[in-house]
């Protein structure tokens, strides 16, 4: 198979009609080029969307209370209620398989500048949170520290502010840690600055929030044991989407909400959303493969066609070879190898051009800055190997019919042709 003579012959045959060989090769190269570029585009979209989820614990359910829509146990319809701290423990006890439950209270920014530092001020969202929230949100500490359990226990008046707030209220080279900000009339010491993990475009607003110990918040702003909002993350390997029924049931029971009241508790199942997006990625790469392979098939048919013509042209030669005693299998192998060789070479050219195109797109993306929902289109080595595998199979298929035709040529028929 790897004898020098066979390769020499393959090269002789393919180079005997360069224009035809190149035109044929183009079909296959184009097919694999399309496949690679489509897959890369799909990957770019996937990367872009994945980045939105970056750092967020995706196996998470967010839950908040709304108004009841059904009367229950003597309580009227349209009742406003709030979760209580005891509900957190109740959920923890009743629903196994949960990793983190973070209760939260928050203060909106509807009532003028709620945060003041010296002469500067602004409207920002303020959260009362537990330290575990950092595992569920896509933030990281860029300076100082995040909240800890000691803050919770001692109800310390400390806050962690977003980098956006730092830019708003402080000078660029000013030391932030240890300074005080006044939030709705109460002074808090800044102990840390956080940043968004995925800071492309939309990050700005989410870097204008303030984290405060949950207990401090409750006491300072009279929330008693109310809880406005909860982020519940399931253990790895357990799906929050399967647990959310039990969680809702537990809370409804303890808050005296009608079990069939769908509107009393609002929730957002991040995991379900995430899975929906995941299946979208699957669909995108399926479409890429589907279209790419179809285009490739038309190229392969081209190769097959040309090989048939080549065989027709070489009928006499094949007849001579057989008269001289060449094994039919050797002829078949020769045709198959020509076909596979042509397919692979042109496919590799397609892959190379595809890679350059992707490289070019990346360069453009880099120079114009981040684009929403599209990031770093690329193909992995695995995809390239799959493409090569497809090429080998395609080459085999393309050569198969011509090769069989070639060994059916009878020497006498071939030699009769003048």
């Amino acid at each position, binding site marked *: 198979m790897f004898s020098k003579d066979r390769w020499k012959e393959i090269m*002789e045959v393919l180079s*005997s009609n360069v224009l035809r060989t190149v035109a044929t090769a183009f079909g296959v190269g184009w097919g694999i080029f399309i496949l690679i570029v489509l897959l890369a585009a799909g990957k770019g979209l996937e990367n872009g969307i994945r980045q939105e989820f970056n750092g967020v614990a995706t196996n998470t359910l967010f839950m908040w209370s709304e108004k009841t829509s059904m009367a229950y146990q003597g309580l009227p319809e349209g009742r406003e209620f709030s979760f209580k701290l005891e509900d957190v423990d109740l959920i923890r006890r009743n629903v196994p398989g949960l990793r983190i439950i973070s209760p939260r209270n928050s203060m909106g920014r509807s009532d003028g500048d709620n945060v003041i530092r010296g002469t500067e001020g602004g409207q920002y969202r303020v959260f009362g949170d537990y330290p575990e929230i950092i595992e569920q949100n896509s933030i990281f500490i860029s300076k100082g520290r995040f909240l800890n359990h000691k803050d919770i226990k001692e109800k310390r008046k400390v806050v962690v502010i977003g980098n956006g707030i730092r830019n708003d209220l402080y000078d660029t080279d000013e030391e932030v840690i240890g300074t005080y900000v006044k939030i709705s009339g109460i002074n808090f010491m800044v102990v840390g600055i956080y940043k968004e993990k995925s800071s492309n475009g939309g990050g700005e607003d989410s870097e204008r929030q303030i984290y405060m110990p949950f207990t401090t918040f409750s006491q300072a702003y009279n929330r008693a044991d109310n809880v406005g909002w909860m982020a519940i993350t399931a253990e790895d390997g357990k799906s929050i989407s399967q647990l959310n029924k039990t969680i809702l049931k537990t809370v409804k029971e303890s808050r005296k909400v009608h079990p069939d009241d769908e509107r009393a508790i609002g929730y957002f199942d991040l995991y379900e959303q995430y899975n929906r997006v995941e299946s979208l990625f699957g669909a995108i790469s399926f479409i890429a493969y589907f279209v790419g392979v179809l285009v490739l098939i038309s190229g392969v048919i081209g190769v097959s066609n040309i090989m048939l013509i080549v065989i027709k042209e070489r009928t006499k030669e094949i007849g*001579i070879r057989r*008269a*001289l*005693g*060449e094994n039919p*299998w050797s002829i078949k192998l020769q045709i198959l190898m020509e076909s596979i060789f042509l397919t692979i070479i042109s496919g590799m050219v397609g892959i190379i051009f595809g890679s350059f195109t992707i490289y070019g797109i990346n360069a453009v993306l880099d120079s114009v800055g981040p684009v929403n929902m599209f990031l770093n289109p690329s193909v992995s080595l695995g995809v390239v190997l799959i493409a090569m595998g497809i090429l080998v199979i395609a080459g085999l298929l393309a050569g198969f019919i011509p090769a069989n035709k070639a060994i059916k040529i009878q020497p*006498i028929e071939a*030699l009769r042709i003048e």
Partner: protein
Amino acid sequence: MGSNSLHVLKGINFTAEAGELVAIMGSSGSGKSTLLNILGMLDEADSGDYTLDGVPIKNLNETKAAKYRNKFLGFIFQSFNLINYKSALENVALPLYYQKIPRKERQVRAMKYLEQVGLKEWAHHLPSELSGGQKQRVAIARAMAAEPKVLLADEPTGALDSTTSYEVMDLIQKINDQGNTILVVTHEDDIAHMCKRIIHLKDGVIEKDEKVTQVRASQYV
């Protein structure tokens, strides 16, 4: 293939001894080409036996037929049938390639036969750069390269002028002198008489089978 079958050969029985130079003569349609195809294992007889060097040639599959052709037979065609993108040397080496002889040795042996037909200097030329007589001599070298039991020549001089024809026949005679068995199909009387035995075919039967006094082609060259 039409539904009408045509019996071309209707009972042929002859034996060629080792070292013979036999001419098979007949006008067109006499069945000489069919006979040659059967002898060359390119075609199979409907009935009858064919024994070559003690081996019965029967019910061959393609792989086996190819092997026998390579080992037992050397073909010389009217239209030379050289492979036009290969040099003279590569053409001669081709049967040896099918025997899986290493490249180096192939080249040495092919060169030896090219030298024998007087074309050593033309070894690296393509067939298109050779004259008709030279092409046929390359074809003869190729037929001999595998050292077959029998050389089968189908109108070897059919496409050549008479001077070149005699040169080629001279070469064939010399090869025969070395002890090779050669069958020549021809319809030219003078060519036939340069052999040692003439089998006349007519309408698919042997009309006459005679030993003749060989006319040496060298006297015309």
